[in-house]
């Protein structure tokens, strides 16, 4: 893997000047993933902040061939591109001559956990050679912070508002990484942009395996989390240190936790600075906070039990 110094010398494949918010978690994720390709790479993106923020005609922040087609079909779109590649390669008709090309689909949590899960499942099952990266900011941010099935429990969103009788989102988030792993693909991982070396290593592995790979990446969103732009990376780190967002990988079916916090932080430390959880800190909601913590503890223990095991 490249050192930080080497990385800083490589050309960014996603240029600056895009319109994503200051402090958005998406750009560092995309940059680190694309760098891991180490050669020609073609990407697609589902409708959402990344797509809108990087391409307002006639501008584009993409220095690689890139396509946005719709919201729910990033995995199907990349299936088509990758199949075109295999077809033209075997016929000796690749534009610019024979070469090895990597394929990446980027999707938000809405585009991946919800509306795009069918296309994702199909592409994983068919075994296309591509990497799917979900940037999980925990809601449909581009359309104004609506809940998705990735939204943390009890979050205040515009379609799961913390109201007088219902205190935010009622459901625990869907465990997409496990669902993806159940497709028995060669590589699946969870990552976070605060740990650039862990993320880069995972992206490199994901690009190198033969077949589908998947990465679910925590992506701070100052707008939807009601946090300060300059703190995003701090909150990404706390999501991991509280074990809300464990870093792990599943390689050929074997699960490995890639980072275990020395001291597991209380969940409240991650929740408190975020406006979306403000209501949980009212005295009458103390029990909700407790419930949330319990669930996080349970999920973390479940993961610890699986560490090093073949799923």
């Amino acid at each position, binding site marked *: 893997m490249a050192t930080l110094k080497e990385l800083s010398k490589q050309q960014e494949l996603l240029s600056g000047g895009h319109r994503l918010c200051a402090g958005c978690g998406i750009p560092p994720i995309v940059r680190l993933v694309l760098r891991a390709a180490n050669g*020609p*790479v*073609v990407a*697609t993106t589902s409708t959402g902040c990344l*797509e*809108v923020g990087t*391409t*307002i*005609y*006639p*501008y*584009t922040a*993409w*220095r*690689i*061939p*890139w*396509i*946005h*087609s*719709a919201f*729910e*079909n990033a*995995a*199907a*779109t*990349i*299936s*088509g*591109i990758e*199949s*075109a*590649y*295999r*077809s*033209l390669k*075997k*016929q000796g008709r*690749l*534009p*610019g001559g024979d*070469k090895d*090309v990597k394929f990446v689909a980027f999707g938000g949590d809405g585009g991946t956990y919800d509306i795009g899960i*069918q*296309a994702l*499942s*199909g592409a994983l*099952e*068919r075994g296309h050679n591509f990497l799917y990266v979900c940037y999980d900011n925990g809601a449909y941010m581009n359309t104004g912070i609506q809940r998705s099935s990735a939204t943390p429990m009890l979050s205040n969103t515009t379609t799961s508002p913390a109201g007088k009788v219902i205190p935010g989102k009622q459901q625990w988030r869907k465990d997409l990484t496990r669902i993806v792993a159940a497709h028995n693909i060669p590589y699946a991982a969870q990552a976070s942009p605060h740990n650039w070396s862990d993320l880069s290593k995972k992206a490199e592995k994901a690009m190198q395996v033969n077949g589908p790979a998947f990465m679910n990446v925590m992506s701070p969103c100052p707008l939807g989390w009601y946090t300060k732009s300059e703190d995003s990376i701090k909150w990404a780190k706390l999501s991991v240190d509280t074990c809300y967002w464990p870093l792990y990988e599943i390689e050929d079916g074997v699960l490995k936790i890639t980072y275990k916090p020395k001291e597991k932080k209380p969940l409240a430390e991650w929740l408190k600075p975020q406006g979306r959880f403000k209501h949980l800190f009212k005295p009458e909601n103390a029990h909700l906070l407790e419930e949330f913590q319990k669930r996080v503890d349970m999920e973390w223990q479940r993961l610890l039990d699986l560490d090093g095991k073949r799923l």
Partner: protein
Amino acid sequence: MAITATKGQVGLTGNAAVAYAMKQVNPDVFPAYPITPSTAIVEDFSSYVADGEVTTELITVESEHSAMSACIGASAAGARVMTATSSQGLALMWEMLYIASGMRLPIVLADVNRALSAPINIHCDHSDSMGARDSGWIQLYAETVQEAYDNTFMAVRIAEHAKVRLPAMVCFDGFITSHAIENISLLEDQEIQDFVGAYKAENPMLDTDNPVTYGAMTLPDAYIDFKYQQSQAMMRAKDAAVEVMKDFGKRFGREYGLFDTYRLEDADTAIVILNSAAGTTKVAIDELRKQGKKVGLLRPRLFRPFPWQEMVEALKNVKAVAVLDRADSMNAFGGPLFNEVRSALYDLDQRPKIFGRTYGLGGRDYKVKDAVAVFEELSRVVETGKVETLLKYITL
């Protein structure tokens, strides 16, 4: 069963013929998803792939939405792409149809016409492709198996035409054409390869040294300009279609036009109708002509773009026209074909009288007697100079 290595005259179903046509084109990528009555096309094509008769990458997608999404990805990547569907499948693709045309990707899709749910029905009508008539796709319609086979090649050329670059749909009737065996004349693989030519993609994404962005967000300062260009391309598609059909006729001796006419030159009354029902109508015309009635037919082949000027020319001397739709726009103002033909005739100083009839939905038979009854109504209109009933369902 997929047919192999055949040439000359052979008895084939519409589906087998179109699958064979696709095999002869040998596209780079073929996303496939089954639905009655087009299933046999994707099955036959899968056999061609399994037997190594094509170099195509088959993608057995998990839905038609993904089929069209994969078509778009593959086409933007630089591949020649084909697929097939019907009815609910086309409906599920609807969102993506507009994206394919908006991105100017020359994908070719065979739509085996079938009714739309509800109620669910697997039989023929044109609700599916008519529902996509404004999606920016070129639409070719076929009366017979031979024509469906031939249209498949022409669709590739028109779609990929340098002045067009738009996706194209090859439409023919479910069961009536897709499952009926007709004796047709096949072309040689080499003739097809010479006719369609090697595919040259524009701005392929796989040209990684020259990166392009597809599908950028556009704001009001740019969106309408893209749509204007697309609209202009659709206008040019008519001339391209004429050019391609001429070349096809010259090479293979089968002449096609923007529409087909039958005994229309001196007709007082005419039926305008799509696809297989034109055959039935021609039988009725022959019977009525024997009785001295001057009746004729116009069968549109190219529905998108709609060749209205030529159609007006062909219909201007007719006294009364009945437009028969195998789809209802549910607008309480007649079917799509009726509306287009009626609108096209508006500028004539001396307009034919016109009425619309909806027939044959969900596979209901349209018989010679139904066509005869329409011609009888038309002659009453000519006699009285009045259209009594502008719109009505027949074959009820």
